[in-house]
């Protein structure tokens, strides 16, 4: 068992290290800052995809509403940045200086109570994690205790996504409405729009993503990871082995929500705005597609899936804007029908055996150098 375990462990680490090398060395060396910033934006979606691997792949719980948590994380960050950008000097032409511009346009004369904590960065950062976690906890307890699962759970998460996006659009004075929160400039006086800031934020995102994947790998290796798989396959056996299934499902739902929120916060920082178009049903489904393409059982695969689909999206939507949606739908259906384990599955069943065969063949062909010269292939 130990040898097998160690091999799995080693390959897990190699995959993560390779990904980190690609993201932290190869891409920054070969892309200009505009493209790199774009990759950084995609990587912020990858946080959600990684969360979906835990929730959907491991936990067997399909959420079609992860945009909600991505959005909440993003909005919490955006609220802090917006308040910093709305200092009394730069908003002196408003009828109420010192509050965000969209509030002024909506005849608000005072900062709403809800916004007040977001004047402080530590509180805002705490909110990035706690607000989505709390919502996921309440929804999780309410649904999992009642044994809502499968398609019904997916529909409920869709409903939440719809409700939140309608709420944000409707409460224009408090949320910036359909435009979202825009014109974000500085973080504690540091201009986040500059090239150097884009570089730093990109590397921060990569580092954070690496840490998040590492943490998720640790969860997968723990007894909790085994239990998630066990629950996915034989829920009743787990329940009648003395485990409260609902509490484990709630945990993994909260975990996925927090990861999505981290992604949302990094998105806001790198892109410089947050809007309801990242909260609703369609973006939530897109996030599931990224995970499915990458492979819902593979944390690292989910990142590649996210990058690849977004690359395709950027390329195709530039060239054939009308066709893109159909293409993405076809991609999703194709992947689910033909490669249920996504890119990671293709790698595990085709590429790796081929690589191993080649390596063994090379070893057989060139066993030991005979005359001091290494045997050439």
């Amino acid at each position: 068992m130990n040898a097998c375990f160690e091999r799995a462990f080693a390959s897990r680490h190699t995959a993560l290290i390779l990904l980190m090398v690609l993201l932290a060395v190869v891409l920054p060396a070969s892309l200009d800052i505009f493209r790199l910033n774009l990759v950084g934006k995609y990587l912020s979606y990858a946080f959600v995809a990684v969360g979906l691997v835990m929730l959907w792949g491991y936990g067997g719980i399909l959420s079609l509403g992860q945009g909600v948590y991505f959005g909440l994380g993003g909005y919490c960050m955006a609220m802090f940045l917006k308040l910093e950008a709305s200092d009394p000097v730069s908003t002196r032409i408003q009828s109420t200086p010192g509050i965000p511009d969209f509030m002024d346009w909506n005849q608000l004369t005072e900062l709403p109570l809800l916004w007040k904590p977001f004047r402080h960065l530590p509180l805002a950062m705490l909110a990035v994690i706690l607000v989505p976690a709390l919502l996921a906890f309440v929804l999780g307890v309410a649904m999992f205790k009642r044994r809502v699962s499968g398609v019904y759970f997916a529909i409920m998460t869709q409903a939440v996504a719809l409700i939140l996006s309608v709420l944000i659009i409707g409460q224009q004075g408090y949320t910036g409405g359909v435009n979202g929160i825009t014109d974000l400039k500085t973080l504690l006086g540091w201009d986040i729009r500059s090239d150097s800031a884009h570089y730093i934020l990109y590397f921060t995102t990569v580092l954070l993503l690496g840490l998040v994947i590492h943490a998720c790998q640790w969860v997968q290796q723990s007894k909790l990871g085994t239990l998630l798989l066990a629950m996915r396959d034989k829920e009743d056996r787990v329940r009648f082995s003395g485990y409260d299934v609902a509490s484990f499902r709630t945990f993994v739902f909260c975990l996925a929500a927090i990861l999505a929120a981290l992604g949302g916060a990094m998105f806001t920082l790198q892109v410089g705005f947050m809007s309801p178009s990242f909260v609703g049903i369609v973006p939530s489904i897109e996030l599931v597609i990224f995970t499915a393409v990458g492979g819902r059982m593979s944390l690292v695969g989910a990142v590649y899936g996210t990058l690849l689909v977004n690359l395709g999206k950027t390329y195709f939507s530039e060239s054939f804007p009308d066709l893109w949606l159909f293409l993405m739908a076809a991609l999703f259906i194709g992947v689910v029908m033909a490669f249920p384990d996504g890119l990671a599955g293709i790698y595990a069943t085709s590429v790796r055996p081929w690589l191993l065969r080649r390596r063994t063949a090379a070893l057989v062909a060139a066993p030991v150098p005979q005359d001091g010269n290494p045997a050439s292939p």
Partner: protein
Amino acid sequence: MSNTDYLLAVEDITVSFDGFKAIEGLNLYVDQGELRVIIGPNGAGKTTLLDLICGKTRASAGTIRFKNQEMTRMAEHDIVRAGIGRKFQTPSIYENLSVFKNLEVSFPRGRSVLGALAFRCTDEVRERVRAVADEIGLTGSLELGAGLLSHGQKQWLEIGMLLMQDPELLMLDEPIAGMSARERELTAELLARICRNRAMIVIEHDMDFVARIAHKVTVMHQGKILAEGPMDAVKADPRVIDVYLGH
């Protein structure tokens, strides 16, 4: 209701599904260390009775007391933690995990979310897994994927998963269904061994097997108890012959 010396006391239990009474006014008492077999024709309510005891189905009326503690309103996982283990009719194991993992996951520690995150497979756990694997004859298959086991081995593995928790009452629903003659024999020996320090309720149809393992037999018919007693007495009961054994 008064306290009793019984390990399990089921009294006046009734359950109805949309008006159909699957079990009606049933009483059942199980002693410490007793191996009770429940027999009866299909639809008699045998599996439903086990479902009621382990909390999978909720009773419409009546009480179930385990060590004088009322169980009818308890959550399933709390009933398990109180000491009642249940094996399902079709082997219910984690096919994607190894035999070792199947047993390890059933070890009764780290049952909360944080506990599971902090759980480490210590020597104590490993030793327990080995001891149980030995008991169920799967020592050589610990690293095998559980899905690759034969049907009989899967049944044993599920019994092993329950043994990991060391329950005081073990309930088995048709443990030898689909087993070969040799496997049946091994299972009978296994049950006799593991019954030494716990009570068991077994549902079974195979009368030879029942005669071999049972301390006491309960015959159910249409949601009620038809007869109860030692195998020989039950076998001779004309009502039992009428509805179940046949002439």
